[in-house]
């Protein structure tokens, strides 16, 4: 019923919902972000819970960058120059990004990089 070479297509699935089994890796936790709070405070609850996971993902991006540019200069550039960019980003996003960097302990430039990932990877 399936080909194992591209384009790999299988028969249309049925009975997958409610999710369970090997294609379901877990439920997603709910959080509240209060837009009445100052932007730098809004993400504190989420980041406090996800601090480790965020740091681990950023580290994976750094490892990848180091694999491409082994001198470490790419990450130096991110840490040195991207923080300057945050001032040019529109309010309240700039303040929210600052708040996330403070709450997570991840360098500001690396949080900026994560937030502009989409624009970088459209090519």
């Amino acid at each position: 019923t399936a080909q194992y070479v591209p384009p790999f297509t299988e028969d249309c699935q049925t009975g997958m919902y409610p999710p369970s089994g090997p294609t379901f890796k877990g439920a997603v936790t709910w959080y509240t972000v209060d837009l009445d709070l100052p932007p730098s405070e809004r993400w504190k609850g989420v980041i406090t819970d996800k601090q480790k996971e965020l740091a681990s993902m950023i580290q994976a991006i750094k490892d990848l960058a180091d694999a491409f540019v082994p001198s470490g200069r790419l990450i130096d550039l991110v840490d040195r120059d991207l923080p300057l960019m945050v001032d040019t980003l529109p309010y309240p996003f700039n303040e929210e990004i600052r708040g996330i960097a403070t709450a997570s302990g991840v360098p500001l430039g690396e949080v900026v990089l994560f937030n502009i990932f989409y624009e970088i990877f459209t090519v």
Partner: protein
Amino acid sequence: CTSLVAEDPDGNLIHARNLDFGLFMGWDLKNRSWVITEKLKPLVVNIEFTRNNHTVFKSTNFAGYVGMLTGIRPHMFTLTMNERFSLDGGYIGILEWILGKRDGMWMSFLTRSVLENATSYAEAKKLLSDTKLLAPAYFILGGNQTGEGCIITRSRTHSINPLELDPKKGRWYVLETNYDHWKEPLFLDDRRTPAMKCMNQTTQTSISFKTVYDVLSTKPVLNKLTTYTTLMDVSKGKLESFIRDCPNPCMPW
């Protein structure tokens, strides 16, 4: 990514998506998975944004990412975005931004602003179609009335060839992967054909969260890049999301 908006025979709209991300960002040989995709999965969160103790909108997000890729403004509209690859990509927009030309908007900040401020399908559609962007993108928008569903294909400056729901003419769903809807997808990355095959097999009368989840669970619509699946029902204001895995055999994209 794969996003779709489907209308049932009673005019109820269901909007769903698979978010695929991390292509070519490190392949883990041992686990046969993409490194960044796997790192993103534990960061998936559902967020209810409130103002004056009332829900403004809900979204599925990555913790640490302030923009929006998937969201619902309950009883008004639903929105997802898919990546549109182009040589005239976001890096040109970023360069312009750095050089001081800042009349474009960052894609995910625009979607966040739309979810936060737009109060109707028409207003959201206009903002997503007309706002100058730093990078090309596909916006998939659903409303709360029959026929309100569309794919907005964006260049950095304008909207190209929008595709709308037209249930009277038999177009009861619109479906977008990462290719312009008027062109054939790359033959090595054709998720559109299997997804449409499964939608057509499902038929309009059976469309529901259950059947849409089935479509999004069919390989290669579900693939090694899929981080989460989100299902949204605008009239109920409901958003459900699930972290996904794609056991072998499974396409890497």
